[in-house]
Structures are given as C-alpha cells and as structure tokens.
C-alpha cells in the first residue's frame, strides 16, 4: 500500500479523533462527557501516533485499495449507495431489491453478457430470491417494509 493511502486513511481517523476530543471537552454538561473524555484522550493519542507514522512512511500494516480493486468495486458500491439511501425507501423494499439484485448480478456475473440464456438465468435467480425474501420477511417475520411501487 502506498504512503499517500496510509496518510489519507490515518489522517481521516486522526481528524475524527480530534473532533471527538474537542466535542468531549467543550460540550456541556461535563458529567455526561466524563467517559467520552477518557476514551477521546486515548483515541486522539493513538490516532496521532498512527498518523505520524504514516507521514514518516513507517506504516506497514494494511494492503490498501489498488486501482483495479477500486474500479471493480465502484459500480457495486454506487448501486449499494443508491439502493440503501434512495431506492429502498422511495421505490419500496422489494422493488428496489429486485432492481438492485438484478443489476448487481448483471455487472458481476462471470457468465457472458452476449448469451440470452445467462440473462434469463439472472432474471430467474432474481425472481426466486425476492420471492424467498418476501416469504421470509413479509410473511414469516411480519416485517412491514416501506411500500411505494408494486409491493
């Protein structure tokens, strides 16, 4: 893993540590922040130590994210974010799950995209999976999910 990734990762953690410490020592009532202060003090020292090591190029642990890994992951991550933060509530859980599941299969399934057979297989897997999820959560566990489109 290259040095800049170490600096970025540990820098972010250090920034959170500083914010936690600042909030812990400035917010009132002080009694409510006694324990957070204790944690924040250790947190910021360890985070500072890690950041310092990263800046000096001494951080060794962690494989980082390679360019290939990131590019492979990016479409899945974007679909996940849209699914979780928008589609699940706006389209309804089951509709959103069907769409996200099918898109993820289409992107990552190693089967060739040129064959109609693989598309049919993906469609069938999606339908079966969503039916199982509906049976488990809506019928067996009685979980009432947001319903916007279809079901």
């Amino acid at each position, binding site marked *: 893993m290259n040095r800049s*990734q170490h600096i970025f*990762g540990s820098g972010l953690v250090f920034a959170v540590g500083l914010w936690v410490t600042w909030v812990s020592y400035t917010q009132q*009532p002080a009694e*409510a922040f006694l324990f957070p202060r204790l944690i924040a003090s250790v947190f910021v020292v360890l985070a500072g130590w890690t950041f310092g090591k990263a800046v000096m190029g001494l951080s060794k642990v962690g494989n980082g994210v390679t360019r290939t890994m990131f590019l492979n992951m990016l479409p*899945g991550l974007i679909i996940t974010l849209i699914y979780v*933060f928008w589609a699940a509530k706006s389209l309804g859980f089951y509709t959103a799950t069907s769409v996200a599941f099918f898109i993820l299969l289409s*992107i990552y399934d190693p089967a060739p995209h040129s064959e109609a057979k693989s598309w049919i297989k993906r469609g069938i897997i999606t339908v079966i999976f969503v039916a199982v999820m509906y049976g488990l959560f809506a019928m067996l566990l009685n979980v009432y*999910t947001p319903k916007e489109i279809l079901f």
Partner: protein
Amino acid sequence: MEFIYYFGDVFTPLSFLLLLGGTIGGLILGATPGLSPTMAVALLIPFTFQLEAAQGLILLGAAYTSTVAGGAVSAILLKIPGAPANIATTLDGHTMAKKGEGARALQLSFLASAVGGIFGVLLLIFLTPVLAQWALAFGPSHLFWLAILGVTVIGTLDSASVVKGLLSGCIGLWLATIGFDDIMGAQRFIFHPALGGGINIIAALIGLFAIPQVLTMFAKGRQTDGAEVIEVQRHSILAAFRELFSRTRALTIGTLTGSIIGLIPGVGGQIAGLVAYDQSKKFSSEKEKFGTGHSEGVIAAESANNAMVGPSLVPLLTLSIPGSPTAAVLLGGLLIHGIFPGSDLFDNHPDVAWTFINSMLIGQVLMCIFGLYVAGLAARVAQVPQSVMAAIVLALSVFGAYSVQGSMGDVYVMACLGIGMFFLERFGFSAAPLVLGLILGPIAEANFIQGGMIADATVGKASYFMTGGLNLLLIAVVLASIAYSVWMELRHRRYTTKEEAQA
C-alpha cells in the same frame, strides 16, 4: 448437574426444528467461502426477534457450531477454507481428497469436530456456573476493567498492528457513546437524526461484518474462483470411527489445545487449528507425513477449531465479556431479549442458559451426522458465483437491519459503518475490537459512572479504580496483553526483515 433438568427443552418440536435448521444451514453457510461464522450468525439475528430467548439462542448457537465445522467441506474439497478456522484443515485435507480419500477426510473431520466440540461444551457446562458465582464478587471498578480488558485483549491479539487494534477498540467505545446520555439525558455526538437513539448494536454488527465482505466480493470483479469440487468416493463410516480413535494423540492434542485457546478472549479458531496442527506434528511419530495427506493433520485441526467454540463462550456467559467476535454477536442476541449474561443469567433465566448450552451439545452430534450427508451439497453451494453471494448478503443486510426496529436510520447506520469498515480494514484496522468496543462500551461506562459515585463518597477515584488486588490483577493483564502483542509485533517485524534481507 443442573443442566440435565433442561435437556427436555431442547427436544420441543420448535426448538429441535430450529436446532436442525441452524445446523444444516450453518454447515452450508460455513462451506461457502467469504461467509464467516460471525457474519452468518449476525445475519441470522433478525430471524430470532420473534422467537423466545432460548429458541433464538438455539438457532444462533447451532449456526455458530456448524459453520465452523462446515468450513472444512470447502477446505477439503475445494482447497478454500470456509472460515479462517479451517486453514489448517486444508493442509492435509485437500491432499487426501486429491488422492481420492475425500470421503475419509470429511468423515474424520466431522467426527473429530464432534469429539472436540462435545469436550468444549462440557467444559462450558462445568466451568460456567462456578465462574458466574465467582463473578458476583465483582464491583463496578472490576467490571469496568474487565470491559476494558475485553477490548484491549481482542484489540491487541486480533490485529496485525497493536496500535491500530487498540485504536479500533477506541473507535468502538466512542461509537457506543453516541446518542442520549443515560444519566443526564444530554445529547452526545448526534450529528445526524438517524443517530438520535444511538447506534443499534444489531444493525452495527450486520454492517461491520457483512458489508466489508460484500465489497470485497465486488472488488474481485467478474471472476470465478476457478475451484473445482473433487468427487467423493464412498468410505465406511465404521472405518473412520476406528481410525479416529486409533489417532488418539492427535485427537487429544487438538481437543485440549482448542479448549485452552478458546478460553483466552480474542484468540480465535484460526490460531487453535494452526497451533493444534503444529503441536500434533511435533509429537507425532510420522512427522514427515504431515502435509502429504495425513489424517492426523485433519483430526488435530478440526478437533481444535470446534473444541474452542464452547470455551469461547465462558467469558461471555460468566463475565459478559465476549471472548470472540462471534461471541460478541451472540451477546447482541441475548441483549435484544433483555437478558444480561453473568450470574443474572444463571439465577434468573436458568432455562434460557441451560437450554442454549444443552442445544450446543446436541448440535455437535447433529452436526456430525448431517455434516456427512450435507457435505456434497455444501460443496456445490460453495461454487455459487461470488456475484450472487454478494447480492444476497447485501439484500439480507438491508432487510436484517431494517427489521430490528423498522427504521431506515438503522439501515443507513449499517451501510455507513460497513462501508467505513471496509476501508478501515484495507488500512490495517480490524472489525473485532471495534465491535467489542461498541458492545462493551455501555458496560464500561455504566460501571465507570457507578464506580465514580461510590469513589466520590468514599476513597476517591484514583484509589477506587487503581488499588485492590483484583483491580491490580486486571490492570496487569491489560498491560501484559498489550506488552505481549508489542513484543510479538516487533519479533515478527525483525523476522520479516531478516527474510527480506536474505531474499
């Protein structure tokens, strides 16, 4: 011998069905590379909400036991360990399978798992009530240090870097403070409305263990694992029985090593399997056969990784300190039913405690019986493309997190923690201490505040928390675990540097 009175409760139709379902499902999930036992148990928690506490725990316990054993199927037939605990099994198990002895390796693996597992659960049965009573003597300062001990031990032993492990624990402890303060009612670190009620443990567990796996599968792109299932020929189960008990040295070493390692918080099945394999090789008269498809290797590794399951629950059930990430998830399963481990569990809910522990004993036998039949199917499931697994786990995580309280906020928290944890793991941080911090944070804080009140009225905070035999012992163990890990890290670094220099 109180546990005997509750044996019947395991055999009620629903309980037994759950035990059976958890065992078979766990075997299949365990065989699937990428689905760790911890993640499998975390994803199952939402299914226990509508069950009684004992029944919910039966399902989770069965899944825990059998996922560890199920991991041997893919280790033997695919050369891909289903879980880190099965790494040592691959060394001889897969070589046996390649020689056409796959069935023998599987039979020995499940039989050894059952023997080790039963011994481990018996240890749990006999140690737990004694330690739970002993824990009654613990005051707030001791419980505070115990919680800190839980975080530091896992933080230092489970991570490649001691500082990053401890930092992960601190992040977990901080996350646990988000929300409203219990005593003053003050808002703490609520920077988004979804955090108003604090971070829900179950949603967090699902996110921290499942989402990084999903993203790791995405990061591999459109590739197949390329692993082919080795066909399994028939082999007499009686011959496997005879062979197992003729290899008593490997079986004993594996079982004892696994049980002892299981009792140490933070040291997982992976270590148990590898240490048992190594020790078994050292004491074997056929050292040279190890690694070439020797049955002793499989027996030692598998008896060890299942023997650690029972003892790993001892610190959890007696002191509320989860000994492993999976035990932390089980603690989450207990807390959602309003049950706290420790003496309260055995005094006020003995039916829950003993039915759960007994079910793990029966589960070991079921796992052994069904493991042999399910192995073929499990190996096929292990070949399911990662794209399908990733999409399934993602959807289960979203539904699971939502079903906790019917809140989208929990889903957002689950996703944010999961995505954050993926990147943190890539930067060398570990999920286990973070989870421990999140779970033990409220216990540590409650005892810190309570102890502080007692201290203010008596001897003062410094004396109350830093003096007394038990306090000093716990502080010493905390410091020793950190010192040991620092020493190991430095030693490993020196070793690596030497190797690099030679290269």
